[in-house]
C-alpha cells in the first residue's frame, strides 16, 4: 500500500479526535496522503542507522596519530554538545522548510538561490568524495579482514593474502572494487538494496556490541597475553611502548590535544540528525525530531565513551598511543614486533582476544561491511543531490534520467562512479589521518551552512516560521531564540573549521593531492554555476535566476 502524496500540514494529520478541551480538534477530510506519521522510535532508528558506529575506531586512530597526548573523553563529549546545539538550529530549519532537502535547500530558500546552488554543487562533490573515502576505509581494512578470516578459517593463504594488499596502488584498486560493488548493488530494486543495508547495519552493530562484551569480560593481563600469543612475541606489549618511546612518541593526556581532536569526533556523530531529512513524514516534526536526535546522541555518547573507557582499562592509553604512532613513524620497527593492524584499533584488540571463529569474522568484516552499507545509502543521497542540480538546470537534465528498463538512475550512478574512482586514486596517495581531517572539514562546512541558514532565518524569511495565534512579543522572543541558536551553531562550526585549519599536525599534513581535492570540492560549485549561467545566457535560454525568484502574494 502506498502514499500517493504528501501528508497534511505538520501536526494536523490524524488529529480529528476529541481532546481535553472542546477546541482541541481538527477536522480532516478523506484525501490522499493522510498517513500515520513516523513516531519517535522510528525517527530514532533512522538517526542511529545513519551513523556507522564502527567508524569511531577509524576516527580514534586518526586522533591518536595526528596528535600527541590524545584522549577521547573530552572530544566525544564536546562534539556531542556541538551536535546538540546544531539539533536545535535544524529544528527551526525543519519548521521553516518541512520537506527538507538539506543545507542546499535551506541556503537557497533563506540566504539566496545562488548561494544554495553553489552549496548544492559543492555538497554533491563532497558526497562523491565521501563515497570514495568510505571505499578507501573498506580497502584499508581489507588486509585486517583477510587476516581475521584467515584466523577464523585456519587458512594461512587467506591471512597472508592481506600482506600483499597494503601498497597505495593496491588500496586504490581495492577502493575501486568497493565502488563497483556498491554501484552494482544499487542497480537492484529498492527493497533488495534496503534489505542489504539493514543486514549490513545489523552485522556492524552486532560486532560493536560483542566487542564491548569481550572487552568487559577480559582483563588487561588477558590482553597482553593475547597480544603476545598473536605476535609470537612474549614481550610484544612492552616492546611496542618501548619502541614508540625511542621513536619520540610522547605519552599522556592534554586538554590542547583533546580540543584539537574535537573535529574528528564531530565527524563521528555525523548522520545523527538525519531524521530531519524525513521531516515531512514525522508526527509533530519539530518535537519528534528533537526527541529522536537527543536520544540518538545520548545513546552514541554512552556507547562510544563506554567503549573508549573499556579500551583504556583493558588495553591502556599508553599502548594505544604507542601503537598508533609507531606504526606511522616507524612501520618497520612496528612490523618486527607484531603483525596486528594498527588502523583497526579496538576491532583489532577484539580480534586477538577472540577465541572463536564467529566473533573473529564479525570483527574482521565489520568495517568493510559498514562502509558498503553507508555507501549504498550515500549513493542514493548523492544521486538525489545531482538530480536536484539537474532539475535546477545547473547540470544537464539527462543526468537525472531514470532507466526505462531498471527504473534506476543509471546516468547519475555512472557519473558518481567515475568521479568517485578518480577520488579513490587521489585518496590512496594521502594518509588516513588526512582523509579523516578532510572529511571533518567538509562536514563542518556543511554544518556551517546549516548554522548560517538558521541565523539569518528570522532576518530574511521570518514569514517561513509564522505561528498563527502567537502574541507579538512572544513571537519576537521566539525569533530571537532562532537567531541565537543559529549563531551558536555557526560559531561552533567555525570553531571546528578553525581547529582543523590551524593545527599544522593536521592541516600541515595535507599533501598536494589532498589540497587538490579540497580545491575541487570547494571550487566545483561556483565554477559549474557560472558555466551553466553563461551557457544558458548565450543560448538565450530561460534565465536561471528565475528558478527561485520570490513571488509576491499581494
Amino acid at each position, binding site marked *: *500500500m*502506498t*502514499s*500517493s*502524496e*504528501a501528508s*497534511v*500540514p*505538520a*501536526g*494536523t494529520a490524524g*488529529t480529528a479526535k*476529541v481532546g481535553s*478541551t*472542546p*477546541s482541541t*480538534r*481538527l*477536522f480532516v*477530510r*478523506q484525501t*490522499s*496522503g493522510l498517513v*500515520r*506519521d*513516523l513516531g519517535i522510535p*522510528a525517527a530514532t532508528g*533512522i538517526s542511529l*542507522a545513519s551513523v556507522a558506529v564502527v567508524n569511531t575506531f577509524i576516527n580514534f586512530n586518526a586522533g591518536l596519530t595526528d596528535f600527541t597526548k590524545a584522549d577521547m573523553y573530552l572530544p566525544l563529549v564536546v562534539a556531542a554538545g556541538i551536535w546538540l546545539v546544531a539539533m536545535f538550529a535544524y529544528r527551526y530549519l525543519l519548521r521553516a*522548510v*518541512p*520537506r527538507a532537502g538539506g543545507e542546499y535547500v535551506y541556503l537557497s*530558500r533563506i540566504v539566496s538561490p545562488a548561494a544554495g546552488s553553489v552549496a548544492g554543487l559543492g555538497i554533491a562533490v563532497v558526497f562523491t568524495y565521501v563515497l570514495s573515502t568510505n571505499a578507501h576505509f573498506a580497502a584499508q581494512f581489507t588486509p585486517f579482514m583477510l587476516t581475521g578470516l584467515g584466523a577464523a578459517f585456519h587458512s594461512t593463504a587467506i591471512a597472508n593474502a592481506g600482506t600483499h594488499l597494503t601498497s597505495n596502488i593496491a588500496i586504490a584498486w581495492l577502493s575501486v572494487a568497493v565502488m563497483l560493488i556498491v554501484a552494482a548493488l544499487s542497480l537492484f530494486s*529498492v527493497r533488495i538494496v*534496503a*534489505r542489504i*543495508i539493514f543486514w549490513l*547495519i545489523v552485522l556492524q552493530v552486532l560486532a560493536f556490541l560483542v566487542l564491548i562484551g569481550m572487552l568487559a569480560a577480559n582483563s588487561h593481563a588477558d590482553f597482553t597475553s593475547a597480544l603476545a600469543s598473536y605476535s609470537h612475541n612474549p614481550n610484544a606489549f612492552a616492546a611496542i611502548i618501548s619502541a614508540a618511546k625511542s621513536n619520540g612518541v610522547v605519552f599522556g593526556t592534554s586538554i590542547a590535544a583533546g580540543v584539537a581532536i574535537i573535529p574528528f569526533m564531530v565527524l563521528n556523530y555525523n548522520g545523527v540528525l538525519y531524521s530531519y531529512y524525513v521531516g*515531512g513524514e514525522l508526527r509533530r516534526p519539530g*518535537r519528534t525530531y528533537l526527541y529522536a536526535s537527543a536520544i540518538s546522541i545520548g545513546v552514541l555518547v554512552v556507547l562510544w565513551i563506554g567503549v573508549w573507557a573499556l579500551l583504556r582499562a583493558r588495553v591502556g592509553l599508553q599502548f594505544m598511543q604507542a601503537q598508533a604512532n609507531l606504526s606511522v613513524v616507524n612501520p618497520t620497527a612496528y612490523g618486527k614486533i607484531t603483525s596486528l593492524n594498527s588502523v583497526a584499533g579496538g576491532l583489532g584488540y577484539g580480534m586477538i582476544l577472540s577465541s572463536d571463529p564467529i566473533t573473529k569474522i564479525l570483527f574482521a568484516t565489520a568495517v568493510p561491511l559498514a562502509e558498503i*552499507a553507508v555507501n*549504498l545509502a550515500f549513493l542514493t543521497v548523492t544521486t538525489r543531490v545531482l*538530480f536536484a542540480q539537474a*532539475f535546477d*538546470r545547473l547540470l544537464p*537534465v*539527462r543526468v537525472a534520467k531514470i532507466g526505462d528498463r531498471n*527504473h534506476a*538512475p543509471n546516468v547519475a550512478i555512472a557519473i558518481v562512479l567515475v568521479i568517485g574512482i578518480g577520488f579513490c586514486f587521489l585518496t590512496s596517495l594521502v594518509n588516513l589521518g588526512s582523509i579523516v581531517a578532510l572529511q571533518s572539514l567538509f562536514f563542518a562546512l556543511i554544518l556551517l551552512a546549516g548554522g548560517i541558514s538558521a541565523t539569518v532565518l528570522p532576518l530574511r524569511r521570518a514569514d517561513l516560521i*509564522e*505561528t*498563527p*495565534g502567537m502574541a507579538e512579543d512572544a513571537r519576537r522572543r521566539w525569533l530571537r531564540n532562532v537567531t541565537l541558536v543559529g549563531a551558536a551553531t555557526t560559531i561552533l562550526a567555525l570553531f571546528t573549521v578553525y581547529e582543523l585549519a590551524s593545527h599544522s599536525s593536521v592541516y600541515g599534513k595535507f599533501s598536494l593531492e589532498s589540497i587538490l581535492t579540497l580545491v575541487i570540492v570547494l571550487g566545483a560549485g561556483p565554477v559549474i554555476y557560472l558555466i551553466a549561467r553563461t551557457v544558458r545566457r548565450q543560448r*538565450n535560454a530561460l534565465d536561471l535566476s*528565475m*528558478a*527561485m*525568484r520570490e*513571488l509576491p*502574494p499581494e
Partner: protein
Amino acid sequence: MLRKKAGKQRALRIYFATDVHGSEVCFRKFLAAAKVYEADVIILGGDFAGKAIVPVLTQDGTLRARVGGDEVAVPESQWDQLAGGLGKAGLYPVRMDAEELDRLTADHAALDRLFRGEIAAQMQRWCDLAAERLDPAVRCIITPGNDDPVDADPIIAAHPRVECPELELCDLGPVTMASLGVVPTTPWNTERECTEDELAKQIDEMLDPLPAGRPCILNLHCPPYASGLDDAPELDETLKPVIRGGRPSIIPVGSTAVREAIKRHQPVVGLHGHIHESRAAQKIGRTLCVNPGSDYSSGVLRGAVIDIAQDGSCLDFLLTTG
C-alpha cells in the same frame, strides 16, 4: 515577446503549478506568477481543495484553536491574523461555538457539507481574485485533481475569467492540451479514482478527436509510473511509512496507464502533480514530463515555466520555487 533559440521562436510560455490544497498564499503567488515569469497561460493542475478545517471556538471574547498540534488562544480582535496564518497553510478556519463543534463531530454528513461549502466558497473567491488581478491577455486554467470535490468543477467552468477544460481538449495556440484529474485507485478512496484500465480508456477517448500530427500537452494529474516523478513513501496496511535499511522506503506510485498513454501518443509535454515530494523532470521518449512538486503547507509555490515554439515543440523549461 518572441525569443530565438536554435532557429525556433517562442510562441507560448506556460506556467504550471499544482497541489496547492487550499493555500491562500500559494494561489495568490500563482496569480502573481503570470507577471513575474511573463507567462501567456497559467495552469493550476489539480488538488486545489484544502484538506482540513480548524474549528475556531468563540468563547467570552477569546478565540481558541488547535494550531500545529498546540492549543492557541487569542482575542477576537486577532481573527484576521489567526485566519490568515491558517489559510496560508491550506487550512479552513471556521468560527463556531461548542454546540456546533459537538454536532459536527457526531454528524459526518454535516461535516462533509461544511467541507464542500468551504471549498466551493474558496474557489469562487479565487476565481474572482483571478479576474481582478490577471492581465486580460493571460489565460487562467484550473483543472481538478483526485482530491477535489466534483461539485467544484461547475464553479470554475461557470466563471468568465477562468477555464476548466477537464476531460476536454483545449486549444493553446501552437499546442492542444488535454486534461484529466482522475487517478488510479488510492488507499484513501478519494473522489476521482478508477482502475488503470478505466483510466487508459478515458485518456484514449479524450484524445480521440485530436487531429493526427497536432502537437499536444497532456495535463494528467497522476504522473507516469516509475518515471522519477512518482516516488513516494511506501505505506503498510495501517498507512504508516515503511522503514527499510534505516530509511523510509521510497517506491514508484504513478500510473501505468499514464505511462503507456505518453509512450503511445508522445505529447510534447506531460504536466503532472499528485506526488508532492517527487519534484522532477524526465523524458519518456520525446515527451518532457514535469512534476513541479508541492510545498503548499509552508506557503511556497513550486511550479514549472515551459516555453513552446511556434511549431508546438518544447523549447526550454525551468522548475521554479517562489
